[in-house]
């Protein structure tokens, strides 16, 4: 089986141990890099000792000062964990959307999540201020409301919530929510900067609180999406064909959209709008490892986590000790990388 995971000629139906191993090693490397490198130069040996010290039955004096220890435990670790969770959730949601809508341009924000969260966050910031813990909650609510509205509209519009109808409903809902957000922002121009910095993504100032907020949604979302990987393969052959196999496309779509929305809304609520991960990571996985969703989904989860951890590492080191918005990094690195993979890959879009 060795090498099969990277061989584009062989149809692959499940993740080979090699591909899985490579993905895990990349993720582990990204996490370690994220912990060892930062705006402040801490000796890698000491950071590793500090980490090992917390393991059970291990006691090592790392020699880090209280502040340096806080940098590792209160700043770098939660940031790496959160980047990993957000990346994994967005990539899984993107992969699942691409499958369930059979559309290569689908990303987690397809059905209005971003616009809904943006409106929710704006209303929250305008009414209670950006420091309030209410903001992530209303952003989450806005995101879920937007997708629910998209779904309802898709049903009303007929076509039995077919993929294309839903996408168009999503466009309408996103446009409407964005318009309302712009209007609210205009009425409260003094909060523009806060709204803007929220929209740009904000992994820079997160701590364990945010990790705790997102973790349940991220885990539920990713697990549910992973459980649907086989059904997504069935859907890939076409809705009617799927129906003859006893798979209801609209039912799968509902579950996938619900799970993806839960995760994406959580990710956006704590991390802001981070683009590109959900679109590009599944494609890169598809081009490198195979087109079955049984391969794409698990590898997207790992790859998305690794990608965003590395992107965040870039965000805090490129101009260190200044920060660069993470969305800039994901697009700046993801775009060209995607182009290279696309060019060298022999596999086109499709099952």
């Amino acid at each position, binding site marked *: 089986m060795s090498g099969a995971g990277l061989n584009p000629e062989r149809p692959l139906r499940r993740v080979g141990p090699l591909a899985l191993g490579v993905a895990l090693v990349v993720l582990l490397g990204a996490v370690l890099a994220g912990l060892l490198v*930062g*705006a*402040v130069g801490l000796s890698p040996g000491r950071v590793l000792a500090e980490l090992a010290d917390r393991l059970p039955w291990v006691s090592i004096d790392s020699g880090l000062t*209280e*502040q*340096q220890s*806080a*940098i590792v*435990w*209160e*700043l*770098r670790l*939660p940031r790496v964990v959160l980047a990993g969770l957000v990346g994994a959730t967005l990539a899984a949601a993107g992969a699942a959307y691409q499958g369930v809508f059979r559309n290569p341009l689908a990303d987690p924000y397809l059905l209005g999540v971003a616009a809904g969260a943006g409106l929710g966050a704006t209303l929250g910031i305008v009414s209670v*201020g*950006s*420091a*309030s813990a209410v903001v992530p909650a209303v952003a989450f609510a806005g995101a879920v409301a937007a997708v629910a509205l998209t779904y309802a509209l898709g049903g009303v519009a007929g076509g039995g919530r077919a993929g294309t109808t839903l996408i168009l409903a999503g466009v309408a809902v996103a446009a409407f929510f964005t318009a309302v957000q712009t209007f609210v922002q*205009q009425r409260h*121009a*003094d*909060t*523009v*900067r*806060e709204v803007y*910095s929220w929209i740009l993504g*904000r992994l*820079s*100032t*997160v*701590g*364990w*609180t945010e990790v705790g907020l997102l973790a349940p949604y991220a885990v539920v979302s990713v697990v549910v999406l992973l459980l649907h990987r086989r059904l997504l393969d069935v859907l890939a052959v076409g809705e009617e064909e799927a129906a003859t196999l006893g798979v209801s496309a609209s039912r799968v779509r509902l579950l996938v959209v619900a799970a993806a929305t839960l995760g994406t809304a959580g990710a956006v609520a704590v991390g802001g709008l981070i683009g590109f991960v959900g679109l590009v990571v599944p494609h890169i996985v598809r081009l490198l490892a195979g087109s079955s969703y049984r391969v794409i989904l698990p590898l997207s989860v790992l790859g998305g986590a690794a990608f965003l951890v590395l992107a965040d590492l870039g965000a*805090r080191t490129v*101009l*260190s*000790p*200044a*920060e*660069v*918005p993470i969305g800039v990094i994901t697009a700046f690195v993801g775009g060209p990388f995607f182009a290279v993979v696309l060019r060298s890959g022999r596999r086109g879009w499709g099952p």
Partner: protein
Amino acid sequence: MACPHRPGPSSPTDGEVRVRRARSAPWTALALSFVALAAACGGETAPGTGSFPADVGGTRIPAYPERVVSAAASHTEILYAIGAAEQLVATDQFSDYPAAAAATPKLDAFNLGVEAVAAFAPDLVVLSFDPGDLQAGLTALGIPTLLLAPPATLEDVYGQIDALGEATGHPAEASALVREMAAEVARLAAAVPGGAAAPTYYYELDPTLYSLTSGTFVGGLLAVLGLENIADAADDGTGYPQLSPEYVLAADPDYILLADTRCCGQSARTVADRPGWGSLQAVAGGRVVELDDDVAQRWGPRVVELLAVVAEAVYR
């Protein structure tokens, strides 16, 4: 017109300034009373003492302007302080100091258009930035328009005050204000104890750790007090870098100056609650200074107050 007969708004009582670290330190008190006085009694001299037509920064103002539009809060504060309040017919929505300014008819600073401004039939318009052809458009309508961009130094501020004095016919009040401000700044600077190592500070513009360097207007102002800015090492060319939280922790500044108390609800308490920040000496030692965002952002007469508040916190 005489100061006591001015309509209520600019009386010293509504010098309503939010100094959170309200301590009766003589410095602040002095600076505040001075600002309040300047705001209230700028108009001692009779209007129209200037000479017209006046040429100010390339703009020709044919006669004493009676309908002035100010599209920036800083310029509004200056206009009040030099006794041009009577001439103001409209300000932008951020102009809220002194309190009377909030009651003037409002322009939307984010949607400044030639028509919206011209609707007030102004004979002088003061802008701090041009969203695009606004100055040209107003000039084409025969409305003299001054463009006074955000300053880089205190000297620029004095220049703008003098320019506004000349343009509105209050040159004497303007130069008096400049003299008083300069004297106050000099006094604050002279009171800085020499010898010891310069205290370091972190200046916060928003909770995502946007800061500013000594190269900016406010940074340059604080340098007068002999303070060292931790963001200088992080300058990304803009003067307003977003700092990495771990950098702030490692730098462990002596003082944390919060200019995001109004906009973003930050306080010594919220700063202490941030992950890892509790270990900072500024937090543990109660050296987190809560500034008034508005005072910290504007370049009007109250820059003296900003300096005084920081000087009091650092060298009390």
